[in-house]
């Protein structure tokens, strides 16, 4: 067949595909899943924005009240208590593509307030009130579609490209008409890939066009799309590899489904469980017990929780405030090593899991998608670490102001440190390179097998 005839083969195969009930079923499942994922993503994005807005508004209102009180003037006995009334917002940056990959961000507290009494263990005391019965069912986001649904649809579309013709004895004829196995596979691959990749990329485009104008969203969309495409190309390379083996359509389907189950279900669960077993984290209860013991040891009487109510006299209030600073400092110092150890070990565990994910590409892709979206465990940990450090700085500054003879003024409020979120994580370049390398290897192995394939 001439080169000029190639488009007609592609057109022919595309027509065959579009006329098949399988393609329609695949398209229906994919479009429905993407529709649900986009709706869920939109709802999650709106909830996250609303939550941050509520926290920001609440703290801004408190700040306005405080400033109005200072401007209006107040007795010295009240003015000395100002450091304890300051609450500065610590708002997590909204992950730029949380509507595509919810990741870890959905479970984490998104806002807190730094104050004289805030410690690392109390900064995010207001945790999500989401119904745990719904959380445990898992989320359906675009990442889930790309990692779980789309590969199975590719398997359904591609498992029999060569084996089905071989099973029916028509392979020799088809190859003779198609002008070679490579061209035939290309003509069969392109419409199938387009059928799955097209809706995913359209969904991404829709997110880009309709989504909010968040910092870093364009870059996140680009990297998320690259990881998604690389992940699906890897699956298609595996489909080609299995097609290149001398297997029946049923055996090919079984092999591909088994591969999918191994890489998507079994290995991620197994690796995560084994790492958790081998590297358990320190108990969260240890922080609670240590904080309570330190707090009780540092206090003796009525001098902590209602420093402002201890007396109407300036000297008493100053003393109560100093005791509050002392108690909070002691508790923070007692719990800091446990919290730091917890964070360090959690980061270490995640790093090992990231390495192990190299043998489970869907797991690697899931982490990379979340990283691109800004909702991965690393981004959450970086925010929590920066927020804890900031709370410590605010506490120290307010303690200094509380110890100062002159009461706080508006200028002091202006000069208090403001929370700066950590820089976004680097794009998942290594994951992209690894996924493409694996796809290349599988593709090369498939090509080598196909060159030796006899159309018997």
């Amino acid at each position, binding site marked *: 067949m001439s080169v000029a005839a190639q488009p007609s083969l592609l057109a022919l195969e595309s027509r065959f595909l579009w006329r098949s009930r399988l393609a329609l079923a695949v398209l229906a499942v994919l479009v429905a899943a993407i529709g649900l994922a986009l709706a869920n993503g939109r709802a999650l994005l709106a909830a996250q924005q609303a939550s941050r807005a509520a926290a920001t508004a609440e703290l801004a209102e408190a700040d306005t009240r405080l400033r109005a009180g200072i401007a209006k003037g107040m007795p010295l006995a009240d003015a000395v208590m100002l450091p304890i009334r300051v609450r500065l917002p610590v708002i997590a940056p909204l992950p730029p593509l949380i509507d595509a990959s919810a990741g870890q961000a959905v479970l984490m507290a998104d806002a807190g307030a730094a104050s004289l009494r805030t410690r690392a263990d109390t900064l995010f005391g207001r945790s999500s009130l989401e119904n745990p019965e*719904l959380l445990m069912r*898992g989320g359906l986001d675009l990442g889930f579609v790309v990692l779980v649904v789309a590969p199975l649809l590719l398997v359904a579309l591609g498992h029999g490209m060569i084996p089905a013709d071989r099973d029916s004895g028509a392979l020799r004829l088809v190859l003779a008409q198609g002008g070679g196995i490579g061209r035939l596979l290309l003509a069969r691959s392109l419409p199938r890939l387009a059928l799955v990749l097209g809706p995913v990329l359209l969904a991404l485009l829709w997110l880009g066009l309709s989504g909010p104008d968040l910092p870093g969203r364009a870059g996140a969309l680009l990297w998320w799309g690259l990881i998604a495409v690389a992940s699906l190309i890897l699956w298609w390379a595996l489909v080609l590899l299995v097609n290149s083996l001398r297997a029946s359509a049923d055996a090919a389907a079984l092999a591909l489904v088994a591969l999918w189950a191994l890489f998507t279900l*079994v290995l991620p669960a197994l690796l995560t469980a084994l790492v958790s*077993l081998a590297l358990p984290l320190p108990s969260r*209860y240890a922080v609670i017990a240590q904080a309570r013991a330190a707090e009780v040891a540092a206090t*003796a*009487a009525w001098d902590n929780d209602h420093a402002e109510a201890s007396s109407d006299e300036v000297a008493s209030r100053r003393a109560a405030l100093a005791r509050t600073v002392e108690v909070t400092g002691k508790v923070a110092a007692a719990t800091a090593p446990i919290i730091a150890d917890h964070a360090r070990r959690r980061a270490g565990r995640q790093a090992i899991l990231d390495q192990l994910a190299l043998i489970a590409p869907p797991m690697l892709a899931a982490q990379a998608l979340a990283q691109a979206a800004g909702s991965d465990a690393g981004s959450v940990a970086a925010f929590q670490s920066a927020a804890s450090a900031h709370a410590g700085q605010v506490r120290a500054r307010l303690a200094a102001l509380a110890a100062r003879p002159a009461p706080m003024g508006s200028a002091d409020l202006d000069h208090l440190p403001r929370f700066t979120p950590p820089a976004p994580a680097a794009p998942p370049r290594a994951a992209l390179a690894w996924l493409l390398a694996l796809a290349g290897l599988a593709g090369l192995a498939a090509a080598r097998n196909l060159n030796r394939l006899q159309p018997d």
Partner: protein
Amino acid sequence: MSQSATWGRVAAKDWREYRRDWRLALLSLLVAVLAVTAVVAAFVEVTAHDADRRATIAADRVTWEGQGARNPHSAAHFAFWAFRPLPPMALLDPGVLPYAGSAIWLEAHNRNPAQARPAEDLAGGLDLGRFSAAWVFQTVLPLLLFIIGAGLVAREREAGTLRLMLANGLAAGGVMPAKYLALGRIAAVLVLPLLAAALAATLLAGPVDGLALALWLAVYLVYFAILAAIAVAVSALAATAAQARLLLVGLWLVLLLIVPRLGGGLAMQAAPVPSAHGFAAGVAAQMKSGHDPFGKDGKAFEAAVMARYKVSRLEDLPVNIDGLRLEAAEQHGNRVFDAAWGDLAATHQAGRNALRLTALLSPLVPLQNLSMALAGSDGAVQRDFQDRAEAHRRRIISLLNADMALHAGAAGFDYHADPALWRRIPDFRWQPPGTAAALARCWPDLAALGLWLLAALGLLRLAGRRLAAGLQ
């Protein structure tokens, strides 16, 4: 030869073929490794949690009783923590526990949400559900069952051996029961050892309600019966084994992965919960706007107390007015908390009801509800823990306020209670609701699972008729 003996021979043949297929054997081995790992991981987690909880409670008690002489209200601010024990059957199905906190700070003036959610500490990766024995039974084993079952009838038809079976005495109408029996036998060999391992670990973890355990096993038996019927029916209806396999994998994807997530997403949108800050701000606003015996309502409160004790001066009261003020403020707070947390519980229940609608689209939804309810790890039991902890908070804060009212006298907030008071404050003890309560709240799930069983058996019968018609 009797029909049942023929069915037995068919089942034995299929079992032999299953054993000879190294691919299926390998997949089964992987699933078994996964299940055993889940059981070991859950056993370590449940036993570690229990040891940790006991140690923390003991340490906390030492801290509490060793706090020395201090004002009761100061102690009320340090107060207690309530720690939720994990039921031994959480080893089988952790349910909502990874997503619900297990520690609640019981302090004066506040009802706090449960903290220390294990999900926050989970290593990040591909989240297809919380790894547990239940997850393996609910999600992974069904896939294996579908893969194995796909070829049972379709492959025989492709190879032309179905007619051979008829020639050997199997009635046309007996093909489907025979194949159902065959898949049941394979499933039993796959599932029973794993279940036995899980049950042994559960019994090692602590005392278990035998009725709950038996019912838990029964609902899984029904679940596997439904899935096996679907697998054999699809195998009979599909044109080829490959088509049956893909159809079943597609069904698995939709029924067991997509629909429960669809239900969760829809329920979250149908019953949206308030943001944590919005909720806290609302409670704070209600607290401020209501009865304030320390502020705007102080004079009226003093007058009412003096009238009650028939005195005309605060100094003549036989009780400390601040202790009474604290208790009155606490009572007002309790009403605010009841309203706010009641609304939240209603929202959660509305979400659960919305989710239940998808029970008609997937047998996994009612199974999950039943499984975690019987394991004592569902949302209702978590709410019970939270409510009991709140009741305990109120009890101990009232005891501390009463001590201040009765003994503080003129010293007021400078009064220091005798350390013996701390020893009189009871520890938090909680007995989760039993199996009867679980069944009472899960009857719609039982009914849905029953409907699924009927529908699956109906599909099996329909497929059998079509197959028999095709063979005759």
